[in-house]
């Protein structure tokens, strides 16, 4: 699992942990049904307080990314393609917001931007 925490970031630590675990799941670095470290183990590994990790795990569980099996531990939820699709779409949306902002800053019109996206989507440049 890859987790890089930024001290002094405006994103609270628990949210950084939550996002990192989510990203590991979405990118399939963590496979469905794979066991996650326990709250206390991860808190030790990341050098953050226990409640910080607990809060991240609680939210991940609520959002359906992980499941707690009583007495066994915490696991990545069985494959939920809808959830993953949604998460990836959210990522695209966030990037599009930045792109729109950039387009506006150089007075690129909506239709020009859409044309550009269409051109790239259809393989107009060498994007694989």
């Amino acid at each position, binding site marked *: 699992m890859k987790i890089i925490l930024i001290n002094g970031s405006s994103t609270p630590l628990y949210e950084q942990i939550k996002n990192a675990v989510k990203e590991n799941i979405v990118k399939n670095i963590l496979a469905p049904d794979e066991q996650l470290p326990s709250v206390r*183990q991860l*808190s*030790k590994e990341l*050098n*953050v*307080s*226990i*409640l910080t990790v607990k*809060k991240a795990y609680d939210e991940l569980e609520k959002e359906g990314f992980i499941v707690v099996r009583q007495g066994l531990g915490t696991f990545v939820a069985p494959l939920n393609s809808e959830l993953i699709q949604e998460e990836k779409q959210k990522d695209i949306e966030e990037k599009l917001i930045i792109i729109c902002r950039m387009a506006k800053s150089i007075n690129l019109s909506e239709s020009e931007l859409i044309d550009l996206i269409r051109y790239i989507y259809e393989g107009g440049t060498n994007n694989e």
Partner: protein
Amino acid sequence: MNRVEIKNLNKKYSNFSLKNVTFSIPNGYVTGFIGKNGMGKTTTIKSIISLNHYDGSVIFSNTNLHENFDNQKIGVIMDDSFLAKDWDITLVNKAMKVGYDNWNEELFYSYLIRFSINKKMKVKELSRGMKIKLMLAIALSHRAELLVLDEPTSGLDPSMREEFCEIISEYMEDENHTVLFSTHITQDLESIADYIVFIDEGKIILSLEKDEFLEYFKILKCDLEHQNTINESAVLGKKINQHSVEFLVRADDMKAVSNKFIEDKVSIDRIMVLYGRKK
């Protein structure tokens, strides 16, 4: 569930007193104990571990420590080490073997190897950092379930402090372990504390989860001209300098902030500096 309940602890000195100190230490978590120098941290800690006389009660695992202090399950680190200065490490081991029912000699020596402390060294020859590590090794080797640490990291360099926090995190892997530690160092609190207890002038001001503690406050700044426009009843402390005023306020009493004020990030350091300050 709470591991330790401290109730109505009172203690009077000629120039200072603890006033009805009441708080609890949750089982399985790290509680950070903060406050300025001379506000009652060490006095409270000494009472918890029965090193002084006090009124009130300290309940640990259904036992009132005030009447019946059980040191077997409690590990202590204090500035003045309770070890004789002329003892070498082998003698320390012998003394602990006598003193503690669950003393694990093998574990003790393995910690010393890890901490690079030579068996032949005498207590007085150890640096402050090494002494802290030795006391930590002792606490961990008699299977203490509660660690009470009085400013364990002050005077340690950053890498040693980090190592110390890592050892505490390791200790906390066992859900039945609990830590109370006093500190000035925000970095330590950020990395290991789950709860914060804040003491000022011998009184407990707040006892909350760390995030809730930080959210309880707001820090606002404004120019000198507008300092009187603030809602005085929300102000917990302020600092005035040549060009601006910094206020510590209760967040709940200050939901809408006028545009004359700029909000700054709340940190434990700033809370300690500003709380109770009048100018």
